[in-house]
């Protein structure tokens, strides 16, 4: 069962009705049962893995808290980290490392192959593993207390809106909400439903519609011109935004309807004027996780190297981000590109600010537009490595073709017309939120006719041009 399945449209309302009928004390228990039911419907066998990671996390956080000597505490913490990471490593990285080491040793004439496992990646494993790790680290650093109720920990790691693709939540934010005896909040529930509606629009009308055009090009790149490949490259970030952004909104919206707040994942990323700003707006839950648990400790330990310490910390952080996204060289390169671009951004920041101040560029619309476009293009090109295609050679072939082959553009008129209808509406909405947050309101308009007109128009657009039975969410593969 995924958000775009018909089953979810039955499951979610049923959960809400029962959730609010039940006494407040039992609501978290019901959510736990519903969450495991949701996950079992997707991946019955791998539910055991989720339960295993939950058990390890619960036992080790309790053990860490009870331990008094610092050395022993550290040992338990490291053991907890290893055990929590083991399933992720085993399912996601074993084959990649196995093949990489084999290829490396083969260069020296050493050929000791281990069999390829070819296991399917348990859906959501990268997300709930990071949530479990964050919780372990927070308890070890004494930022939060270890939760005594194993059911609450289990609910935190399996909470159905976020278990498959995030946002990657923090124990500190969620435990208190699960335990709180919340009363029904009408405004929050309505806001949640609005987010769900817009999330479905982003996923079904934009991401899945674009996916038809983009997969036709990227999966047959050898038969497409450089012009088509360039066009597809420039559209791909919008597909990913529609896909993960849409998923995140549905997840946040579902939680809101139950009175639970989830951290946002996107903040109008395509209005970023630099890559450092972009990464403060794109996949926020992952980036803040990496900043808190990877970048900050590394940059702190390297502070004596000043700006170069920051550069090393950035490179390492985004290397890990690349590895997290996928066990493939393409993702590692993608991560390193982000690290390199952000490092250049950090090194040149002072000069850029001086120039901007001297010519008062920040107030000029054309300068903002230019910076947004440059940032977008840099990210779009880096994404050719970050999931558009699955091999480095293919990526390089595409980049080569973009600069050498300017034949005609592949047109799929209906797909492009429908996609651009969605894209235009998305950009108008983001533009309004960015520059005129209190004007031209639709979903939040006080006039009931405009508000309901907007709800119904978006719903009809989804039914009319959305792609049903389309692909899975892109981030399920991570």
């Amino acid at each position: 069962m995924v958000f775009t399945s018909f089953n979810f449209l039955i499951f979610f309302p049923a959960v809400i009705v029962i959730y609010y009928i039940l006494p407040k004390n039992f609501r978290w228990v019901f959510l736990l049962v519903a969450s495991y039911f949701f996950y079992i419907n997707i991946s019955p066998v791998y539910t055991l893995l989720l339960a295993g990671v939950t058990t390890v996390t619960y036992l080790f956080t309790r053990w860490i808290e009870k331990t008094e000597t610092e050395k022993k505490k550290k040992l338990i913490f490291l053991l907890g980290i290893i055990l929590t990471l083991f399933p992720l490593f085993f399912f996601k990285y074993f084959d990649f490392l196995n093949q990489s080491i084999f290829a490396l040793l083969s260069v020296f004439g050493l050929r000791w192959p281990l069999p390829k496992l070819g296991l399917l990646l348990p859906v959501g494993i990268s997300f709930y593993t990071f949530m479990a790790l964050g919780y372990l680290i927070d308890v070890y650093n004494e930022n939060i207390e270890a939760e005594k109720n194993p059911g609450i920990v289990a609910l935190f790691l399996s909470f159905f809106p976020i278990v498959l693709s995030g946002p990657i939540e923090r124990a500190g934010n969620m435990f208190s909400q699960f335990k709180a005896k919340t009363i029904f909040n009408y405004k929050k529930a309505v806001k949640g439903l609005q987010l769900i509606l817009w999330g479905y629009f982003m996923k079904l009308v934009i991401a899945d519609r674009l996916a038809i055009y983009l997969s036709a090009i990227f999966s047959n790149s050898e038969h497409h011109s450089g012009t088509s490949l360039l066009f597809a490259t420039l559209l791909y970030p919008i597909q990913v935004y529609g896909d993960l952004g849409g998923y995140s909104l549905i997840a946040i919206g579902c939680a809101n309807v139950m009175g639970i707040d989830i951290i946002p994942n996107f903040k109008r990323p395509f209005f970023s004027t630099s890559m450092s700003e972009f990464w403060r707006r794109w996949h926020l839950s992952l980036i803040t996780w990496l900043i808190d648990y990877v970048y900050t400790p590394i940059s702190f330990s390297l502070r004596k190297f000043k700006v170069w310490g920051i550069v090393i910390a950035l490179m390492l952080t985004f290397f890990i981000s690349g590895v997290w996204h996928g066990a493939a060289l393409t993702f590692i390169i993608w991560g390193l590109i982000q690290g390199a671009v952000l490092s250049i951004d950090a090194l040149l920041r002072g000069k850029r600010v001086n120039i901007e101040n001297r010519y008062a560029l920040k107030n000029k619309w054309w300068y903002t537009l230019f910076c947004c476009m440059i940032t977008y293009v840099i990210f779009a090109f880096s994404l050719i490595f970050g999931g558009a295609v699955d091999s480095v050679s293919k990526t390089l072939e595409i980049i080569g073709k973009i600069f050498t082959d300017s034949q005609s553009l592949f047109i799929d008129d209906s797909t492009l017309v429908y996609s651009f209808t969605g894209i235009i509406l998305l950009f108008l909405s983001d533009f309004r939120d960015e520059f005129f947050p209190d004007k031209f309101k639709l979903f939040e308009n006080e006039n009931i006719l405009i508000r309901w007109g907007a709800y119904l128009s978006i719903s009809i657009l989804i039914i009319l041009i959305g792609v049903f039975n389309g692909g899975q969410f892109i981030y399920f593969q991570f």
Partner: protein
Amino acid sequence: MKGIKDLYKKLFFFIFFLGVLDFGIGSILEHFYFTERSLLNESNKLDYSLNQTSEDILIFGSSTAYHGYVPKIFEDSLNMSCYNMGQNLMNIFYHYAVLNSVLQRYTPKIILLDLTAWDFVKTGNDFDILSDLYPFYFSNKSVREVVDIPGWSEKFKILSKTYRYNGKLLFIMKHNIIPSNDFQKGYLPLRTELKEDITTFASDGFVYDSLKFSYLDKFIGKAIAAGCKVVVVAAPSYGIYTKNQFSELENFLDEINIEFLNFRNDTTFTNHSEYFYDITHVNSTGAELLTLKVAERLKSQL
């Protein structure tokens, strides 16, 4: 403070208004989908194929059939009426629904089935493409049979009148404004020539999908049981295939004594880019040559 009952009440009204709007918009789309102007061209093809055909020869298949066989050539050389039922992107489930519908009305003399990989290899959108049949879901039992294959949820989705025309808005607008003039008894010629070097494909044989294969079996079985002559064709493609990808299909057709005309690596076509529109479709010149070759073969057997 507003409570949950207020929310339920508003959700009820929302669903009610959405239902009304859905019915209204769906009805407008239905009207323009079935208008006379629209019926002059492509959107009529499906209606005609399902409900009106009476020709002796019917050509089934996806885009390779649609753009690959010229009915007039069959009519001239075999002295029988002919209609090209080929429809872009369609697969064996679609062909089966249309055949079933035809056989409930009459028995054609010859069924020509043009097969591509999509007819027996599993793809991610095997059932999505059947959305072309949605406008006929409630009026045609054969359509319902294949649309319902993926599961019960489709039955509910299709209750939405607008959903039946999902993704067809542009198609409806286009065909109501600019009817196609090039449409010849179901055949649509592709006029340009391919300018590309030939590619060698070293891919392995197909992995057959058992469900699709069972529908291929049912398609042929139904046609034979009704008394039709069935001929299966694989259209030429502009590429060299190092392995015969149709070997399993050939064995199957051989067993049930059905003729298989495999033009995939036919040297009359391969290496001749002037016969192709792209690597998988012949252009109008190629279509005429292909139809002549098939017609000759059929003539020798009649």
